[in-house]
């Protein structure tokens, strides 16, 4: 089974390092973040020979899992029913919500995501993310544009060519600090709750059980809290990244 193979050959984790602070490349080109740290722990827990972080473009991440190019996706992936038809998800290891970064001229005029639900507004998110799904679902009347990376969406909002950028709160927090001060308004109240989970190929209950067990274990022994502190409550890691 998969577990034996991981013990023998190591754990291969697919992720796209473009999702702060879940996974990101640092100055040296190494992949760091919440997920890589969890992957490290998981590899130890599963007794893997080694850990390999495979940086995969988002387009290729599901095929890579299906065709056994990696054992697990740990890339801040939101659990949706549609996706669950193709892959098996672990129990959610985190909940995030969508928030809005607003062009500063709209400060006061738009107080919540609901005010954006109007034909005259242009909103943006990243291609293929739950930000996109949420934007289309909860703000259906606004004109929607999807960008390849978050950075472009944020930049467009700063330049005032779209009115709002809809994305996960952890990312928007950092983006607002980095690019937004004085140019953006951060509506930090999440308007959705999305479970984030790890994905594995279908049909391996044993492996699924093992990773769920791992999740329970780290939540109990405090390792999870420690990492959560490091990546979500602190910004020390930004030094290493920029």
């Amino acid at each position, binding site marked *: 089974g998969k577990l034996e193979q991981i013990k023998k050959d190591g754990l291969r984790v697919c992720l796209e390092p473009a999702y702060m602070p879940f996974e990101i490349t640092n100055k040296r080109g190494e992949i760091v973040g919440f997920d890589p740290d969890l992957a490290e722990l998981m590899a130890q827990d599963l007794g893997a020979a080694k850990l390999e972080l495979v940086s995969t473009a988002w*387009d290729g991440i*599901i*095929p890579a899992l299906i065709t056994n190019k990696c054992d697990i996706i740990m890339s801040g992936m939101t659990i949706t029913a549609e996706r669950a*038809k*193709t892959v098996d998800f672990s129990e959610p290891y985190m909940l995030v919500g969508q928030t809005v970064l607003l062009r500063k001229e709209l400060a006061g005029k738009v107080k919540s995501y609901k005010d954006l639900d109007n034909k005259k507004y242009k909103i943006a998110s990243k291609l293929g993310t739950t930000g996109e799904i949420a934007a289309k679902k909860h703000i259906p009347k606004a004109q929607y544009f999807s960008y390849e990376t978050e950075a*472009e969406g944020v930049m467009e909002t700063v330049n005032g060519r779209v009115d709002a950028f809809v994305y996960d709160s952890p990312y928007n927090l950092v983006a607002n600090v980095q690019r937004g001060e004085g140019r953006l308004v951060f509506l930090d109240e999440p308007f959705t709750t999305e479970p984030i989970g790890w994905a594995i190929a279908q049909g391996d209950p044993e492996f699924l059980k093992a990773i769920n067990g791992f999740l329970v274990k780290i939540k109990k022994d405090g390792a999870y809290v420690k990492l959560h502190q490091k990546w979500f409550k602190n910004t020390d890691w930004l030094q290493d990244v920029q």
Partner: protein
Amino acid sequence: MSLKRRSAQWPWHGLLVVILLGLAIGLWMATKQVNYEWRWERVPQYFAYHDEVAQTAPFTGRIVKVHPDGAYSQVEMIPDAGGSRAIITVETDTLRVADGAQVTEDQEIGVTRHWRVGPLTEGLWVTIWISFASGFIGLIIGLVTGLCRISKNPALRGLAVLYIELIRGTPLLVQIFIFYFFIGTVLNLDRTVAGIGALSLFVGAYTAEIIRAGIQSIPKGQTEAARSLGMSTAETMIHIVLPQAFKRVLPPLAGQFISLIKDSSLVSVIAITDLTKSGREIITSSFATFEIWFTVALLYLLITSVLSQLLFWLERRFARSD
């Protein structure tokens, strides 16, 4: 052996068929081996789907009569507040009211169904029209630049060389990026305009080189004959050189245009939803990765083969004077 023997060709054609069959079977086996559940039935809906539009009562009132009329029914209503009657058409099998029923404003009476184009069709359309628009503008840019490139004026020549080298030396992705986020922001360009602009500039540089080569491939004797008849440089270009060059540049231009169709997918970086991007959007929601990619590839193949056919036809037309 020098005697011509009409050796039978069909064994070779047979072999070709066998090889192709072998490849097809190999591919099919491969799909079996990959642990993937094929759901082709999901694909058609992305081309066109049956949309249901709810038909609601325009006012609070009473149903006077339902006139069934085959698949559709006309529902005749009269407002409680008085005024003129209204007729609402719905599909008979979705009818939710009967004669004499009392309905309130916005109450659903039934639905009508319409065919809507799906995202793949829309993406295909965007790809085609963006490619054609930028192909056309790029042709003009290329023509002008190509002429500048061989002009005797060093300023024109220098600018043309610089433009061509700059464009050919950098990735299109970066060009679209800079064009939109930079020049586009300054000039306040719409994203479609910026996308077409960047693609035109890109394809223009390649076209310029093709046109330059085409012009230079026309024998010098042609220009000399025209000049010796008293034609000016411009007249010589228009009447003698360009028409002949056109025939020669047609195949490389067509190749370039086919490339453009595929390269145009990079405009997705500035949030234009072309064929590739709609494919990707569908994949991220449905995860029907391989089905969609195969479909997208087939659609591209379709456009490019239609173009190849067109080129073939054009070339045959032009061969008249050979």
